[in-house]
């Protein structure tokens, strides 16, 4: 009993530490990647090549005043950032970093991931609604429409993968790929998953919920200090998580040439994160209606077709 309690405690502390440190690393990485894409240097002053810049920013955000707008719905306003951050931590529970580095290897792992990931949208809507700001509300509306729509092709793509593997357990999903990675069996599903992932995490070119030039900062316009930081943290952690899931489902998780292990997982995840940043700093933003058209008229039919073909092929093979 005590053993289990200690185990849970260690995992909880470990996950929170990983989430925070990882987010700091990602913010630094994004700054440097964007800077070099835009022929700038990025942060250079604080620490070696600005390594401590994000730490300084974190300290600034923590020490800032918490402003609540006068007409805001106070309870929801305070609750929203916490709720946005909650699924992030919960999702780390089933991430298969290495063969023996999974907190809980649930036998419904994949289902668990996607059910909790879709909770995020409630927090975003809460934030937008409770701020009592029209830009926030518009951002929240866009976000709900976008995330709910893109979850359809995303889940259809994942369903095809699950169909091939025949298990929802994260460790089995990865173990299945020890010979051939899923990306070679399901290339269409991988592309759909990455696009849906970009949309789910509100990253450019699907960043309409926080479209800076239209909605200022979207649903978190009114947030400041640590509450804003929580949204920020959850956004970057979501980017990381989408890459983690993509690595586990499509890129063979911890498998790689030479020695298998966590290093391959981390390398693949960061490579995907880099690609997502690259896309963000290269492409313009879509318009909300174009975004919806793209989802329902292009991605969803392809995903359904992919699922159908997968099913037929599997039936023929067996």
């Amino acid at each position, binding site marked *: 009993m005590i053993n289990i309690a200690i185990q849970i405690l260690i995992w909880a502390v470990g996950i929170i530490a990983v989430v925070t440190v990882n987010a700091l690393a990602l913010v630094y990485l994004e700054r440097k990647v964007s800077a070099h894409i835009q*022929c700038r240097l990025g942060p250079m002053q604080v620490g070696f090549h600005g390594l401590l810049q994000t730490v300084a920013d974190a300290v600034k955000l923590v020490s800032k005043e918490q402003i609540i707008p006068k007409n805001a719905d106070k309870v929801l306003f305070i609750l929203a950032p916490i709720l946005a951050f909650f699924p992030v931590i919960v999702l780390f529970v089933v991430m298969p970093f290495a063969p023996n580095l999974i907190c809980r290897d649930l036998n419904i792992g994949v289902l668990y991931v996607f059910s909790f990931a879709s909770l995020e949208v409630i927090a975003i809507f809460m934030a937008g609604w409770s701020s009592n700001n029209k830009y926030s509300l518009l951002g929240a509306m866009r976000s709900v429409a976008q995330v709910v729509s893109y979850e359809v092709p995303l889940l259809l793509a994942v369903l095809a993968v699950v169909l091939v593997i025949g298990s929802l357990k994260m460790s089995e999903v990865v173990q299945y790929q020890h010979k051939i990675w899923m990306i070679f069996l399901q290339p269409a599903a991988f592309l759909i998953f990455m696009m849906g992932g970009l949309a789910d995490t509100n990253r*450019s070119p699907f*960043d309409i919920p926080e479209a800076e030039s*239209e909605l200022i900062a979207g649903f978190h316009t009114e947030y400041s200090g640590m509450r804003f930081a929580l949204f920020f943290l959850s956004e970057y952690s979501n980017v990381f998580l989408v890459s983690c899931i993509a690595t586990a489902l499509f890129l063979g998780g911890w498998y790689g040439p030479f020695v298998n292990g966590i290093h391959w997982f981390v390398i693949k995840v960061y490579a995907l994160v880099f690609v997502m940043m690259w896309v963000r700093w290269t492409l*313009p*933003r*879509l*318009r909300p*209606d174009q975004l919806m058209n793209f989802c329902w008229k292009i991605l969803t039919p392809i995903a359904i077709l992919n699922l159908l073909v997968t099913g037929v092929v599997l039936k023929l093979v067996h």
Partner: protein
Amino acid sequence: MYGMKIDNHPKLDRLLLPEYSNFHPLRKGFKFEGDSVDDMNRTWEIEREADQKVSSTVLEHHRRDYFVNMGPQHPSTHGVLRLLLHMDGETILEIDPVIGYAHRADEKMGENGNYMQFYPYPSRVDYLAGMIYNWGYVGTVERAIGIEITERAQYIRVIVSELQRLASHLMWYGAFLMDVGSFTPFLYCFQDREEILDMFEMCDGSRLTYNYFRFGGQERDLSPEMLDRARKFIPMMKSHLKDYEKLVQKNIIFRKRTEGVGVITKDMAIQYGVTGASLRASGFAYDVRKSEPYGIYNQFEWDVPTATTGDAYGRFAVRVQEMWQSLRILEQALTRIPEGPYNNPAAPKRFKPNPGEFYFCVESPRGEMGIYLISDGTENPYRIKMRTPCYSNLQVIKDVGRKNFLADVVCILGSLDIVVPDVDR
């Protein structure tokens, strides 16, 4: 500004000054002292009270449509412009631009000083086209007093004007793409613009608001180093423009965002008095440099680019072509620039032009910029009226923006290339 009453006007209110103000500063009888100061102070109070009333009444309604105040502080209105949007969901029902937040009484300042004292102000009206506005003012006064401009000064004027046009278009290029949602081109364009600003620093000393033109010539000569730098700049800019074309104009998301958005028809553009690239994108080849050549523009070989679509992409393409044409003019001017005096030593310092009315217009990056000068034969101008292009170009958004999405309005506003102090003067 004059307190004119117009019959049957659908919405008659103060344009540039606060709505409840009851003074008319451009009238000759206006003095800013005593009563008028009190009036101005009272204005803010009345306005504040009225605003509070409005906000409390709006809250009582529960309707499907709603109003959004886009601006005066908003990232994509490019300054203190306010758009009152009447919206239903994401769709715009009505747009009402509210201007006057950057009104700095430039015209009134012209009346208060003598002709020399108005030198530095025009470049502050449109801070992205300072050199060209300098020319606009200096050209008007030169026309009024009939002074000759030296040959070298003519070339210098063309060179700095075309460099300024490039700088302004580059700034717009980046800002427009930022409105459409991609941040990176902004910094690339700024790098090129920086090069131009460095060159301006070499010829004038300042980087943004110049005071380089004098009646009959220039304030100082262009240094050989600056000319060398400009010669080196042209091939670099050409290769960069080719790169940008590949990266931006061939990007499908960018095309989808701009094609067919905010179509200004030819008639609509003429009716509203739209000039510049926005007019040429609607298929009307009107460029002051060609149709009413000033300076020595008729000695160069260049074309007026046009488009037929009239949409945001058309305006984009026309501006990009204009950059190529500017480079073409620059190339010719830089090879042909003669030696000689850079200013006319005979130019008088203090003078009294003959009474009369004078108009001189130049092609600013945003359209026709003209100064209408009334002289009453004294040392001070009687009236300086600036015909600024953005003021007319902005009006069109009322018609064009209707029934569009919020994202499109940002795109249209960006494609019109509005500079707010140019609207408000």
